[in-house]
């Protein structure tokens, strides 16, 4: 193969992978069916591993394919599959173009070999993993590159796409064309936004200054795949005979892993971008097949590392116990009269329990983008500190549409497991709680019933009250916790009905009233007026 063809192939593959992932994460119109979405997220390493813990099927084998690919060709995942990696390349490409314009003359980005920061890298693998063992996904949730990319798109690109869409819709609307509809973003979650922004800035700055430094210092997936790529079948090798020691490859290496003086490539950190091969003036650097060598294996798992693992495990478990205490209290009703606090947030249908959900979700927010009613919103402390950023049902933004199971279909990590619509309609995510003191019927003595109106199971129904009035009554056994009642409730500032989450989802009873109003209709009978 021609030398520069490898580089072209890499760029081509990157585009093939980043485009569909960006589209599904930025989409607000349900453009892509979830069966296709599953294949688009198939290769994403962390989600795929997490999903395979819960159930193993062909759709969860993506991480195995990634491991095999890495064992064969090195960190192909990092160069062409990981959207965050590709994003850094794009940022870099643009920043280099700008720098080139400014300096005008033959400008060449200068990367230099950087020594690996092993301790930091492995700390950032160990902490999230141990946390995960203790059922806390916060670490992996913040660091998983795919999920971080999901949040970046959700917070920064999706609003822009929606903005463009809305401007187009408004323009067409003035010509009375309604083919494109505007989309109102219902809520803005400040803290999840700020957290994502700070990570985004970190990635931006690191990539502009040092190329793929993020991937080789912070990203736990990069660290883990690095171990495999070190022994990959095909790898970047410097050919002693051909190399003229010009050092161009080092300056072009965005992974900062080529030490041209010592003529060594740190394959652990090589992201298989093939920049070095295209820039080499001779044939001094190649992507070649070689037999794997295992003689260095010992220093990867030495005793100190093992001790460190154990120590950090103990430390983290203590910390997590402390963090779990720090939980935001959600004010649901007027605190001045009857302070009522929601004990549990409501997790999406298919997530089985808060614990299962909190331990599997990496907060990629694909479900948030896919949710047609916008009820799924990133949380801050509603699940507790450790569940930060994970989506919850926010009934101020919307309610869970009775027949909809899209979130369970698209979830790449198995935090929301596939659930069919029939089962979902009987899955109780929480229970509606009525706060009479806030209810219009009680305070204003006028009819309202918006809650019961929206209730799909009539778990909230209206019963006779004073005079001709009707007041809501909740029936736990039929309630599925969809939050339609809470969303529809018109009282301000506090709702008169709210959903208290179930820590473990339960099964609701089917509301089958068998006393069918059998009215024998005689179509020949006269009208009653």
């Amino acid at each position: 193969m021609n030398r520069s063809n490898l580089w072209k192939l890499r760029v081509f593959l990157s585009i093939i992978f980043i485009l569909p992932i960006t589209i599904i994460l930025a989409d607000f119109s349900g453009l892509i069916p979830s069966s296709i979405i599953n294949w688009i997220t198939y290769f994403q390493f962390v989600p795929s591993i997490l999903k395979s813990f819960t159930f193993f099927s062909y759709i969860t084998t993506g991480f195995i394919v990634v491991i095999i690919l890495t064992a064969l060709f090195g960190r192909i995942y990092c160069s062409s599959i990981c959207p965050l990696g590709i994003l850094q390349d794009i940022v870099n490409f643009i920043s280099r173009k700008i720098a080139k314009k400014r300096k005008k003359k033959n400008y060449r980005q200068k990367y230099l070999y950087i020594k690996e920061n092993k301790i930091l890298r492995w700390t950032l693998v160990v902490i999230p993993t141990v946390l995960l063992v203790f059922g806390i996904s916060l670490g992996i949730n913040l660091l998983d590159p795919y999920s971080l990319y999901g949040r970046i798109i959700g917070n920064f690109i999706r609003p822009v796409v929606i903005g463009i869409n809305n401007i187009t819709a408004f323009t067409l609307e003035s010509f009375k064309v309604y083919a494109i509809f505007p989309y109102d973003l219902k809520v803005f979650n400040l803290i999840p936004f700020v957290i994502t922004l700070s990570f985004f800035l970190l990635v931006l700055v690191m990539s502009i200054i040092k190329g793929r430094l993020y991937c080789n210092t912070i990203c736990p997936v990069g660290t883990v795949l690095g171990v495999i790529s070190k022994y990959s079948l095909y790898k970047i090798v410097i050919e002693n005979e051909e190399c003229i020691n010009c050092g161009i490859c080092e300056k072009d290496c965005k992974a900062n892993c080529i030490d041209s003086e010592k003529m060594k490539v740190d394959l652990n950190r090589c992201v298989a971008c093939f920049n070095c091969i295209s820039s080499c003036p001779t044939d001094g650097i190649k992507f070649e097949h070689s037999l794997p060598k295992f003689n260095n294996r010992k220093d990867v798992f030495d005793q100190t590392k093992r001790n460190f693992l154990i120590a950090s495990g103990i430390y983290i478990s203590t910390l997590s116990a402390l963090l779990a205490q720090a939980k935001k209290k959600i004010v649901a009703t007027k605190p001045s009269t009857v302070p009522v606090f929601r004990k549990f947030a409501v997790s999406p249908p298919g997530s089985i329990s808060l614990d299962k959900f909190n331990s599997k979700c990496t907060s990629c927010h694909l479900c948030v983008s896919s949710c047609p009613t916008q009820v799924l919103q990133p949380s801050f402390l509603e699940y507790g500190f450790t569940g930060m950023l994970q989506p919850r049902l926010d009934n101020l933004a919307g309610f869970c549409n009775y027949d909809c199971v899209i979130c369970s279909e698209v979830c790449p990590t198995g935090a929301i497991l596939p659930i069919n619509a029939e089962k979902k309609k009987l899955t109780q995510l929480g229970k509606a709680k009525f706060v009479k003191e806030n209810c219009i019927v009680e305070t204003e003595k006028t009819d309202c019933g918006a809650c019961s109106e929206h209730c799909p199971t009539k778990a909230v129904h209206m019963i006779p009250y004073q005079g001709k009035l009707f007041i809501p009554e909740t029936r736990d056994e039929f309630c599925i916790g969809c939050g339609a009642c809470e969303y529809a409730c018109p009282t301000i500032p506090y709702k008169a009905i709210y959903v208290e989450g179930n820590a473990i989802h339960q099964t609701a009873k089917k509301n089958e009233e068998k006393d069918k109003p059998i009215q024998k209709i005689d179509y020949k009978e006269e009208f009653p007026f």
Partner: protein
Amino acid sequence: MKRREFLSKSFKVGAFAGSVFTIPGFYNNNFSSKSYASSNYDLVAIKGGEPDIMFDEAIKQLGGMQNFVKKNQKVVVKPNIGWDVVPELGANTNPKLISRVIEHCFNAGAKEVYVFDNTCDDWRRCYDRSGIESAVKNAKGQIVPGNSESYYQSVSIKNGKKLTNAKVHELVLDCDVFINIPVLKHHSSTQLSIAMKNLMGIVWDRRYWHRNDLHQCIADFSAFGNKPTLNIIDAYNVMKKNGPRGVSKADVVVMKSQIISKDIVAADAASAKLFGMEPENIGYIKLANQLGAGKMDLNSLQIKRIIL
């Protein structure tokens, strides 16, 4: 914001000149009263047929659609598309009826026919599952979203007792003919949802109505808001309980009926009777009658009754 200001300003400018056409009631009452002469009926009630067949027959009794729709007019058809359920559950207006009404509008010379609702469930799913989106498209009408606040323009409701202001969908403000096609069904808040209640689907902030005496707000809007040119009540599949969304087919009785009237109060009163309730027991019907939005007393009306 700027856009909204622009729209409202241009609306105000155009409002005077276009008021003849933008206020459907005004147009019909003042300029086209002659055309009603061909029909003496205030209300037509029909039963025993399919929704489309019944409409063919009933509209004939009112002198045909050309009595209501003139050449090159803009028509808005407002069905109930509130819920993400199939037509058999009777929560939404029958799609067959909607198709046929649109066809009649075009036959009468309508330039455009728009259909929308401010739905309760996710609007895309409602439009789809109700069968109404495809029914409208088949009849060559335009299905329009009602999901965004930007479509709704503020309108003052003069003389409203509780409701003094409402944000109404721009298409309704801008059309020549406004046809209201609700479905008759049980309603947990107001006991019955018929023509007047269906008008809540052309406004944005319904929570305000719920907070401020729902019955009075419905009556205020029916009396002083955007009056439909024609009310066609679909009483084919009638949800007798668990309304307005319904839980199962056990809630539905197939009544195969339809009621048509220009008078929204009369239409609701007749429908209430058909349902098995007395109009004076439904808060908003009584209040609307008092406000002069129409006549609740069916005995004072010319009614054509048809049994197929």
